[in-house]
């Protein structure tokens, strides 16, 4: 890396909003005053609880969002893997995913800041849905940008956003996935920045977003850490979470980062292969932490899937929510300093993880979370006696994709496809 910056520890950004070499604020000048305004608001309301912001946020998380979520012992998975497996049930948050934690925090913050309009981008549609719900709950006008490909593969979430009163703007550019949706949302923000707040959906983007989103999601790990001590009498040996941008990952890991005895595994989408086609600019995976290189995208220095020239690659995953060529800068830093171990699971093993949890535990997980469950199957022998897995969301939104992808394969964990044809 060419840039040397200040930072003050493992997991806190330095004065310039960086985690080691990663992070920063690489955005058009027009947005810089808004980032400063947001940073000031974040420090006052979130870090210092001015006007009781955090009290109101926690109350709304409880009464509107349904927190705390359970930490459930998964009996049949524990039996299968011969160790204690605990599931953090973020699928039970209102809306069906951890995304509400952050969306509610940011929409509420925008309201405290006096902003008049909310915009957001979405990949799988979970963040868009959570933002639309939070905006309806707090009576804020809301527009969501979503790549055309994702609109087509996540129709139930598109309907849900519209039912909650949000406008959904399909983005036709490029491959029509999350990367293009983020570009378009940044353009909207650069035009309307004075009255609009951009609810970034993950621990990505310019400072203070990575730190602020992590803090809104840290409730996952805070609860899990307390719950595992109550249930198992000690901290876990391992914590496993899937990683796209990394918001459920950082939310789950944050409380455990100082616990050196707890191993942290960030499971990425291995797609169909970890090989990269440089000529075509295609990565048939979204395994940024495992295979990416350092660069600047969407406002931050982080690890990226990019060509040698610096062009960003089209990524791939069977899970729209993981399909992103970047990753949060704090996760890049934690991987670089070996505190977090990156891993990847391919599409097929993720689908098997999906079917296995559905069959064994009666929980239909999001395809994103299915990557963490696929990793459990592969790596359980190395994960110690007590393992916490974050089930970041529920899989109802993914049923069409799962049926289509399951039909193409001979999956050991899937039910017979003919069942659905009768």
């Amino acid at each position: 890396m060419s840039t040397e910056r200040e930072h003050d520890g493992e997991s806190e950004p330095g004065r310039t909003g960086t985690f080691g070499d990663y992070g920063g604020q690489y955005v058009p000048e027009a947005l810089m005053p808004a980032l400063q305004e947001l940073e000031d608001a974040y420090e006052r309301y979130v870090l210092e609880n001015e006007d009781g912001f955090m009290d109101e946020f926690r109350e709304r998380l409880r009464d509107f969002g349904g927190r705390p979520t359970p930490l459930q012992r998964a009996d049949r998975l524990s039996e299968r893997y011969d160790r204690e497996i605990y599931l953090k049930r973020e699928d039970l948050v209102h809306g069906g995913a951890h995304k509400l934690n952050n969306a509610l925090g940011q929409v509420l913050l925008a309201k405290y800041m006096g902003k008049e309009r909310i915009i957001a981008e979405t990949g799988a549609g979970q963040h868009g849905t959570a933002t639309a719900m939070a905006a309806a709950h707090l009576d804020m006008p809301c527009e969501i940008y979503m790549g055309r490909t994702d609109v087509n593969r996540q129709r139930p979430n598109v309907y849900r956003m519209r039912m909650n009163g949000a406008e959904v703007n399909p983005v036709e550019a490029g491959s029509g996935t999350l990367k293009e949706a983020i570009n378009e949302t940044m353009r909207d923000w650069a035009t309307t920045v004075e009255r609009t707040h951009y609810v970034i959906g993950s621990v990505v983007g310019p400072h203070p977003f990575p730190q602020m989103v992590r803090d809104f999601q840290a409730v996952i790990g805070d609860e899990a850490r307390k719950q595992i001590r109550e249930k198992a009498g000690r901290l876990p040996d391992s914590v496993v979470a899937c990683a796209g941008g990394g918001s459920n990952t950082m939310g789950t890991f944050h409380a455990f980062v100082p616990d050196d005895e707890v191993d942290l595994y960030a499971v990425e989408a291995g797609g169909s292969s970890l090989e990269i086609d440089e000529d075509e600019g295609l990565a048939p995976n979204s395994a940024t932490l495992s295979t990416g290189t350092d660069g600047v995208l969407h406002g931050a220095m982080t690890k990226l899937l990019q060509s040698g020239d610096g062009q960003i690659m089209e990524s791939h995953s069977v899970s729209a929510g993981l399909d992103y060529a970047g990753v949060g800068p704090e996760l890049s830093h934690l991987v670089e300093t070996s505190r977090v171990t990156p891993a990847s699971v391919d599409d097929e093993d993720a689908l098997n993880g999906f079917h296995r949890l559905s069959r064994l535990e009666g929980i239909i997980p999001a395809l994103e979370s299915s990557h963490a469950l696929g990793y459990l199957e592969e790596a359980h022998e190395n994960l110690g006696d007590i393992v916490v897995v974050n089930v970041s969301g529920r899989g109802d939104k993914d049923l069409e994709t799962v049926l289509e992808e399951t039909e193409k394969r001979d999956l050991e964990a899937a039910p017979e496809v003919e069942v659905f044809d009768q």
Partner: protein
Amino acid sequence: MSDEDRQPEGGDPRNDERGAKRPASDTDASVEYDSDVEAAIRGDHPALITYITAGDPSLEDTKASVEALDRGGSDLIELGLPFSEPIAEGSTIQAAINRALEAGTTPAGFFELVDDLETDAPLLVMTYYNMILQFGDEPDVRPFVERAAEAGLSGIIVPDLPAEEADPLREACDDNGLDLVFIIAPTTEGERLDTIMSQVSGFAYVQARLGTTGARANVSSATHDSLARLSEYDVPKAVGFGVSEGDHAAEIIEAGADGVIVGSALVDIIASSRTPEEAVDALEAKARELKRGARRGATDVAADAAEDPPETEHP
């Protein structure tokens, strides 16, 4: 003023003190400017700065287009080095970038084009920070800046690099005699404006309105507000984002700018021309129209000035 007059008269092209700290400007040809970029924008007042995307539709066509813009009276020419995620661009330039990338435009090819170009107007590269970082074997800004200097480029504009993150690139540019141009947005005010204006080299790129690049039908009131806010700084100011016609150029110069920057309107010409020859002719004609507009604006300013001489002391 002839082209020779626009060149600095030798000596160190860089000066330790940047724009805001210098004495008031003078358009006299004997004045020694900090760089050829500053000489171009101050020396042939009012300046026309033109932008096209390199490689749109091919690097060979870009060479002819740049030469046409030079003949048409451009005082500075910005060449876009295409990046796949151009978050500051509107649909016109985004489409041009996509065409250039589909045509296989690479940084290496871009620099070979610049090696071949011989223009009166100094050339600047406009690109995103990741393209600069990735040029060498490791993420580092220096190899790009050194190659840019070797190719004869005079400056760099980076739409996603605010002053806060610019130290490494600024140092590399200073060491290689290149200007690093900063964008001033309608939202840039107060101390932040002071800080950026004290770091500007070459000229301040004044963003005419909030949003992305793209030709517009009129000049935004934000342009007038921004130029009024910047009037106390003795730094050359050029206005871009939305400028497409000679009349816009006249209005912007009359409002106090030293130059106008036109991009999307020229990219539109390239996109809509049926043959490369048609594009070249139309680009040259459009540059002349814009330059005439700018001159008309300056004439109006001169007429006003004759009645009411401007202050020479700057706060």
